[in-house]
């Protein structure tokens, strides 16, 4: 098969990732687990080191040059993020530890500490990651609100008739993932947000698997809140983002109490700082922010459209090649354009754990397990899957190695 000119120059990109030189059991690393966490380019690693080596200081309050440099780095990263997802202003960008903390901030600040009560409802979907389930279970348990979940059809798409049925005048929040980390399904957020707004509900988007992989425009989606993690988009571990429309953020209570997030404190009472700092209790993580800023620079230089095209190409090739394996079950949409860059599957011979273990011996890293989506596993009637996921440093050769590796698995378990 002749392939057209690829969207990304993977050979060149790979050279930016020091870890790609590592050998696993004597074989070159074939990393197919970016949906769990991505690898980091030199540019990001160096941005973090450079922060510590040149301008590490406490941000915001320091009246000295180091502190001003650190603040510029931190707030500059916030600007970059705002621009990257097309927020109206950087005050809509809250730094968090990751998607999970972002969603919890909403569950506490809007949910548990908010005006919700019995009779109110929150709508989500069966395909959510635990991070977009458990925080709402908390709200249910502490406020007595009712949760319901949009189901999926056999292909792994959301049943849109469920959206119409479940989103009613009682609905106060629709919390949904933009891209499933198991099915790969990309959901029609714009339509879902519109539906939520028709009943004056908010729409929160779990963008952990979308912002890293394709262009996301929060104004175009018109979602109210959106959460993602730096570590899945070439950035450092321990940093993430909560985007929120300014008005929505302003009406939320803070989750974490401490330094940075206050205006005035007296014994027993306090007032809060302006958004977004109101939500950033405690000393911030400027090294993480600066690293995430460098990751965004890197992705922007590749072009998010190209990243997306590249992953569609890998999807197409991956679905084609995996599809040839006898008895394989591939989860989610079979149209490579309708899914994020990941493919979860099972084969009859071996448990996903054993698949992963044998692939590891071949230098190939894939995920196995419930992928932090037990309710979805239950829905699909399988305890676990194997999952290969793609990013900017993957090429069709990685898929060829995966297929060869799966042959080995079949041999061992024959």
């Amino acid at each position: 098969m002749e392939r057209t000119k690829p969207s990304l120059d993977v050979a060149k990109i790979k050279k930016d990732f020091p870890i790609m030189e590592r050998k696993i059991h004597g074989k070159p690393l074939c990393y197919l687990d970016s949906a769990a966490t991505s690898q980091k380019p030199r540019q990001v690693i160096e941005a973090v080191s450079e922060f510590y080596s040149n301008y590490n200081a406490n941000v915001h309050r320091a009246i000295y040059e180091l502190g001003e440099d650190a603040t510029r780095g931190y707030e500059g990263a916030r600007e970059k993020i705002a621009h990257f997802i097309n927020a109206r202003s950087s005050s809509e960008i809250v730094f968090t530890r990751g998607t999970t903390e972002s969603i919890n901030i909403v569950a506490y600040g809007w949910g548990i500490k908010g005006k919700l009560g019995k009779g109110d409802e929150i709508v989500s979907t069966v395909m959510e990651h635990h991070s977009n389930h458990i925080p709402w279970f908390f709200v249910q348990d502490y406020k007595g609100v009712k949760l319901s979940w949009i189901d999926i059809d056999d292909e792994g798409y959301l049943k849109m008739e469920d959206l119409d049925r479940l989103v009613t005048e009682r609905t106060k929040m629709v919390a949904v993932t933009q891209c499933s980390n198991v099915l790969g399904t990309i959901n029609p957020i714009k339509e879902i947000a519109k539906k939520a707004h028709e009943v004056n509900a908010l729409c929160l988007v779990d963008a952990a698997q979308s912002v890293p992989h394709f262009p996301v425009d929060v104004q175009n989606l018109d979602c109210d809140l959106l959460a993602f993690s730096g570590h899945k988009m070439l950035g450092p571990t321990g940093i993430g983002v909560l985007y929120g429309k300014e008005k929505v953020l302003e009406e939320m209570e803070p989750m974490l109490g401490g330094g940075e997030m206050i205006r005035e404190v007296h014994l027993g009472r306090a007032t809060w700082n302006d958004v977004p700092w109101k939500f950033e209790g405690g000393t911030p993580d400027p090294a993480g922010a600066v690293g995430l800023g460098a990751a965004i620079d890197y992705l922007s230089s590749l072009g998010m459209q190209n990243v997306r095209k590249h992953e569609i190409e890998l999807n197409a090739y991956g679905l084609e090649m995996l599809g040839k394996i006898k008895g394989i079950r591939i989860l989610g949409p079979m149209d490579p354009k309708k899914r994020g860059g990941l493919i979860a599957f099972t084969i009859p011979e071996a448990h996903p754990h054993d698949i992963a273990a044998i692939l590891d011996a071949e230098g190939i890293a894939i995920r196995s397990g419930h992928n932090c989506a037990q309710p979805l596993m239950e829905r699909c009637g399988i305890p676990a899957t194997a999952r290969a996921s793609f990013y900017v440093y993957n090429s069709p050769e990685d898929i060829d190695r995966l297929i060869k590796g799966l042959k080995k698995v079949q041999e061992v378990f024959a």
Partner: protein
Amino acid sequence: MAYEMYQEQILDHYKHPRNRGEMPDADLQARDYNPLCGDDLTIYLKTDEKGTITDVKFTGQGCAISQSSASMLTMMLKGKNISEAKGIDPDRIVKMLGIPLSAVRLKCALLSLQVLKKALFSKELSQAETMKE
């Protein structure tokens, strides 16, 4: 490491598990679950008045390591006394399997022992609970 893990004995027990099946009239039984990977195991025991294990069965699903470990452990149990069975320690399981195990896979390997212990101590537990009430 992987290939050393999937030795003939392990694969044989995985593909042809011994003592697999339910036991509706079990004297002791317990279930546990490995949240990291979804391995799920139930062990059933029948004992006589002397405390000897007369029959043992298991059900569940999981990877080759957890399932073969369950199969091999159940084989070892028949005819053993309960107090003897209580004394089985993790090292014994590791030796029984005879393969190299990483930290994560060790959890798979030891799930069967964990469930066995739960079953063996379940009687005392429920007695203790009854007494408390």
